């Protein structure tokens, strides 16, 4: 999409703009929804293909072995944190990890490629990375929040859960009810906000750095020694950042997989 006449700020703004439908709150980021849905379908398909062939009689190979390895690893991580029936938590952790990895990976695509493909279908903007959209990360964080509250109520009962809100951590004295409740509110809200903002911030920053690196050769319009050098530096920096970004892609997905399990396990504990 890098047109010769584009200015750096126009280039970055273009890449930061979602393809939208609707107005106000009812605005929908078509790119985020399409990419994340497609990747969810891809993740579901790959998992299903691997799970379909899973058998205790045969040794898994290829995709099956890889998926089983991932499942076993996620299940082990969950088992280290939560001691109880962890079938649902494993499913949640596997969902978050695989989906976030798939979405984060789109950041490693050549910066202008998704826009060019979408442009061929008539889209004016196409921001490919769903995890650099706060809506994408907040949706996951809010589900985690609901699960944390639900787990607390299920394990302590509605009365016990409310009692904990006003009696912990300072004590059950009536004068401390309000401070307790304020602190609990902060503690509860910090969890989804930090989850959503951490992933969003990491991916947003990573995407932005790719854009800044891409700006290096934006002004190169004809073959010259300086231009070749700039393109070389851009390729070098872009490669280094991409390799480093693989780590961030996996690390952020891992964090977003482990922390919800930790929060839910903590919600079951009695103070």
């Amino acid at each position, binding site marked *: 999409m890098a047109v010769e006449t584009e200015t750096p700020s126009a280039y970055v703004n273009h890449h930061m703009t979602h393809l939208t439908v609707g107005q106000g709150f009812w605005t929908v980021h078509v790119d985020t929804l399409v990419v994340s849905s497609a990747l969810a379908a891809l993740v579901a398909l790959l998992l299903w293909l691997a799970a379909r062939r899973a058998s205790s009689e045969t040794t898994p190979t290829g995709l099956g072995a890889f998926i089983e390895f991932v499942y076993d690893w996620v299940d082990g991580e969950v088992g280290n944190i939560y001691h109880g029936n962890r079938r649902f938590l494993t499913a949640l952790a*596997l969902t978050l990890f695989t989906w976030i990895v798939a979405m984060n990976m789109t950041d490693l695509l050549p910066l202008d490629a998704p826009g060019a493909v979408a442009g061929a279908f008539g889209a004016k903007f196409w921001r490919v990375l769903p995890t650099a959209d*706060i809506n994408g990360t907040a949706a996951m964080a809010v589900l985690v929040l609901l699960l944390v509250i639900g787990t607390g109520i299920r394990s302590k009962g509605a009365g016990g859960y409310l009692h904990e809100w006003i009696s912990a951590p300072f004590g059950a004295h009536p004068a401390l009810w309000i401070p307790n409740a304020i602190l609990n509110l902060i503690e509860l809200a910090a969890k989804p906000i930090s989850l959503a903002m951490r992933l969003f911030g990491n991916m947003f920053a990573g995407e932005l750095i790719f854009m800044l690196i891409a700006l290096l050769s934006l002004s190169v319009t004809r073959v010259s020694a300086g231009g070749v050098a700039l393109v070389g530096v851009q390729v070098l920096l872009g490669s280094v950042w991409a390799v480093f970004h693989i780590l961030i892609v996996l690390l952020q997905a891992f964090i977003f997989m482990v922390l919800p399990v930790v929060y839910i396990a903590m919600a079951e504990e009695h103070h």
Partner: protein
Amino acid sequence: MLSINATFIGQFIVLLVLLWFIYKVVVPMLAGPIEERQRRIAQGLAAGEKGEQALTAARGSADAIIREARERATQIIDHAQHRANEMVEEAKGEASSEGARLVEQAHQQIELDTTRARESLRREVAGIAVGAASKLLGKEIDATKHAELLNQLATQI
């Protein structure tokens, strides 16, 4: 850029659908076979350990059996040697008694032959004596007539 909008609702629904699919379809399909396989591997390891123990025990009992067999073999060899010595002694004894018997037989035969020879010699001497006497007397001695005399003569020789 930090605007929450309807995209959130869409993302939430996609997440719920994916979570439902993984929880209800994928995890049950994966967990069963994997747990079954892990159980089998644990069983196999336990069986291997048991087999190793059995092997050690079998080695011990095999050693005992071999030792016993060796002892038994030594006993059998000793016994066989003893028996062989006995047989040799027996054979020696038999052979010497047989030899003595043969010598005795030979002695008897010799004695019998000597007696026979003496008898026939005696008879011959009697005949010669009669011949000589008859020649001396000038007439022939009637053998039948003088048989008694001749016999008397023969016994005297």
